[in-house]
């Protein structure tokens, strides 16, 4: 077989892995890892290795669809865009900018998010723009080479980032073996590999963290000099955790006290502490304040910004970092602070618009609230790009009902007819990586350029083309009557973003397309952030003035200034509260949901790769042996899982996990199997509409359920 085509695009899923694409007869025929890349060193996870096949799938969307007389039918781009534009103009005239919302993803390229951000904030002027990403990152993954103590909080790295896991296993099997601690209610491969495994009851992370912090302080395993020089709030933190003894936490979390003590000692005596955090914390009860306590273990111990030390608040999706940087989820572009007038004015200057055009009277609207406004009818158009809320949001019966509302125009921009697309009014066929050019940045700030290797199928267009076309058709202009979106191709969009990001925490001004074409990706901000205890927290530069972590009430600039006049790191604390939905007589078990190695998001692409589909073709339910015995359920038997919101059916898998906890992977929807009525299987049929008050992230990890055997 001769492989033609010199195109060597670099793209990724999950870890920001660099790969080369082989092209034959205008189609992708294979991929390989790039050895010279700084992130993956040539290794690929299974989703990278096999996932590209979805790009060639025969059921790609190739023409726009428009709903006519209740049916989605093929239409031209003019018809489809015309329908969106006329409804947009009607809504702007009747109700104003607040009637239009955008819900995007962690799958597009930086240039595309930035364009969307400009359109939403300055073109429409709406507060309602969010991504399906709501996480946060810090220092460099290189620290993994040198760490002596590795703690993974709610982060099943073996399933979520296979390449990173391989590197961890290298270290754990090699010389100078680091101590590994895993916090996860399930018995995962990470938990089995770990030296200490803490399995707290879902919804109790904060109790555990507060006890760990108290142990660090009580045993004086803290760096008082660092705390004095670089932080504020230590006294308050000390006071908040003073009652949180190990025995208290052991009771709440149902974890042996000795294990908590051992973990505290390992963290306390670490010389090079490295922590990673993921959904087990982010999607659980008291999410933000728990994740903040992980940061606090590093601040208290002065373990940031030096070799072997680090903290990765991980990303789940390849380009989630860019969603945040460009302001496509909840901030203004370049981590600008919506409540800092100087930041808004600077942005208005860059875009050449009136500052009042940029909505900054309150918090940008988060995804769950966008759907609530749709439900209440104040939003009349929601434009969903590269994500699938009809499977991925909590309480699916409600989400389906909202998406089907007559008075709501739903636009879906995707590769396939997803579960969300079938409920849409307009469906736009999009190009994917390998079919378009653009950049993306992973959690350690490495920027890669993904080059175009093949043409998109049929009439599919890149997301950038679609957004730019919308801006043109809407006639968005700046103060001088010139087009608001002044670019039409990825390179010029990137140039515009470089200017927008200049002197902000994510400063891309030193990176350009030519540098990115050369081998490995490039990091913005250099090798390490937070060197010498410097943070982006001064009142004049910080991304936000922070929030009350228990209620999410935004702080005002005056409060922030008096608390933190010199821009140090804030040691924030919070007290443990029990989850709102706890097991009851009717629903005696705790439900938690999560990922599997073989699939991504809602399987839209991964189930179209034969190897990945074959590895995990059907949903399953994990039950602890003790619970399974009590319920009389054997391995492989079919069970129903029921919650106050809905039910699913699946095969049981008996595991060695702690009792009382039921796990369901959230990837499975209905495009390739029945529907919610005849064969319900989406984990989110069961989950609860609730979110963390500070981060607004939905809580997929804690809810009550019951399981019964199906005969």
């Amino acid at each position, binding site marked *: 077989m001769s492989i033609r085509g010199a195109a060597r695009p670099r793209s990724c899923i999950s870890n920001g892995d660099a790969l080369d694409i082989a092209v034959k007869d205008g189609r992708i025929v294979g991929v390989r890892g790039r050895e010279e890349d700084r992130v993956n060193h040539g290794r690929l996870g299974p989703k990278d290795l096999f996932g590209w096949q979805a790009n060639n799938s025969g059921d790609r969307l190739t023409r726009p669809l428009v709903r006519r007389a209740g049916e989605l039918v093929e239409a031209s781009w003019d018809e489809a865009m015309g329908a969106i534009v006329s409804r947009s103009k009607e809504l702007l005239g009747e109700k104003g900018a607040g009637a239009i919302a955008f819900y995007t993803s962690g799958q597009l390229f930086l240039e595309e998010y930035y364009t969307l951000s400009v359109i939403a904030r300055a073109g429409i002027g709406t507060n309602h723009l969010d991504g399906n990403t709501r996480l946060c990152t810090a220092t460099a993954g290189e620290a993994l080479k040198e760490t002596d103590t590795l703690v993974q909080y709610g982060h099943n790295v073996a399933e979520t980032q296979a390449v990173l896991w391989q590197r961890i296993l290298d270290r754990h099997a090699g010389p100078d073996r680091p101590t590994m601690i895993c916090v996860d209610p399930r018995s995962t491969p990470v938990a089995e590999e770990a030296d200490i495994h803490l399995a707290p009851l879902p919804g109790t992370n904060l109790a555990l963290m507060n006890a760990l912090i108290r142990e660090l302080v009580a045993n004086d395993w803290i760096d008082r000099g660092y705390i004095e020089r670089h932080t504020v709030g230590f006294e308050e933190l000390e006071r908040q955790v003073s009652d949180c003894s190990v025995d208290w936490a052991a009771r709440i979390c149902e974890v042996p006290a000795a294990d908590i003590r051992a973990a505290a000692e390992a963290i306390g005596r670490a010389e090079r502490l490295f922590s990673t955090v993921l959904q087990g914390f982010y999607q659980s009860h008291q999410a933000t304040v728990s994740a903040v306590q992980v940061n606090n273990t590093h601040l208290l111990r002065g373990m940031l910004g030096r070799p072997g030390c680090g903290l990765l608040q991980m990303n789940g999706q390849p380009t989630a970092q860019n969603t945040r940087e460009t302001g496509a989820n909840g901030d203004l572009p370049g981590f600008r602070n919506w409540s800092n007038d100087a930041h808004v004015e600077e942005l208005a200057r860059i875009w050449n618009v009136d500052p009042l055009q940029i909505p900054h009277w309150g918090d940008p609207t988060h995804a769950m609230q966008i759907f*609530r406004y749709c439900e209440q009818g104040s939003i009349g158009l929601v434009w969903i790009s590269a994500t699938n809320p009809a499977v991925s949001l909590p309480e699916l019966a409600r989400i389906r009902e909202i998406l089907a509302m007559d008075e709501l125009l739903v636009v879906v921009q995707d590769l396939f007819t997803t579960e969300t697309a079938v409920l849409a009014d307009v469906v736009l066929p999009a190009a994917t990586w390998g079919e378009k050019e653009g950049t993306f940045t992973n959690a350690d700030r490495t920027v890669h350029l993904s080059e175009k290797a093949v043409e998109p199928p049929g009439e599919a267009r890149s997301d950038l083309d679609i957004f730019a076309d919308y801006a043109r058709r809407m006639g968005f202009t700046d103060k001088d009557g010139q087009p608001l979106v002044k670019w039409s191709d990825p390179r010029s969009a990137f140039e515009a973003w470089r200017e927008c990001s200049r002197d902000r925490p994510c400063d891309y001004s030193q990176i350009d397309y030519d540098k990115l074409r050369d081998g490995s990706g490039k990091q913005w901000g250099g090798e390490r952030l937070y060197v010498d205890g410097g943070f982006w927290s001064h009142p004049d530069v910080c991304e936000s003035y922070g929030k009350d972590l228990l209620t*999410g009430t935004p702080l005002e600039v005056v409060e922030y200034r008096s608390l933190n006049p010199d821009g140090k790191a804030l040691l924030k604390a919070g007290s443990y509260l029990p989850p709102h939905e706890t097991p009851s007589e009717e629903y005696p078990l705790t439900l938690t949901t999560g990922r599997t190695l073989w699939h991504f998001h809602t399987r839209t692409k991964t189930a179209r790769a034969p190897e990945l589909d074959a590895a995990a073709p059907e949903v399953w339910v994990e039950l602890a042996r003790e619970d399974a015995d009590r319920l009389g359920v054997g391995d492989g038997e079919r069970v129903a899982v029921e919650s106050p919101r809905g039910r699913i059916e699946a095969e049981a898998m008996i595991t060695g996990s702690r009792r009382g906890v039921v796990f369901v992977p959230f990837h499975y929807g209905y495009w390739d199997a029945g529907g919610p009525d005849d064969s319900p299987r989406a984990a989110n049929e069961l989950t609860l509409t609730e979110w963390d008050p500070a981060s607004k992230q939905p809580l997929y990890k804690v809810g009550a359920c019951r399981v019964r055997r199906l005969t």
Partner: protein
Amino acid sequence: MKIDLAIEHTAEAERELAEQLLEVGERHKADQDVRHITGSRAKEARSNLERLARAAARYGTEIEREPSPAGGVVGALRERGAELLRRRPEPGLVLLAELEELHVRAARASLA
């Protein structure tokens, strides 16, 4: 003794706050953040009440520990109303007025 009167006064403010928080949570069940945050705050007010009751006991007075129980028929009706009106914008305005009132009550409890 004046101190027991002061404790009673404070307890009354906390009790009213807890009751109203629960009521607002029931009436705006469809606004999930309102529902959950009022629930958490009500728990906090309740634990304040218990601490006040312990303090009162030291001064030989007894105060009512519990706010009127949430739920019941009236609570269920409020929740049903929220369900029925979940697609309507009007409860938003009611909510605004109720949050103002809650703010005042919370301020009173914190002063008392």
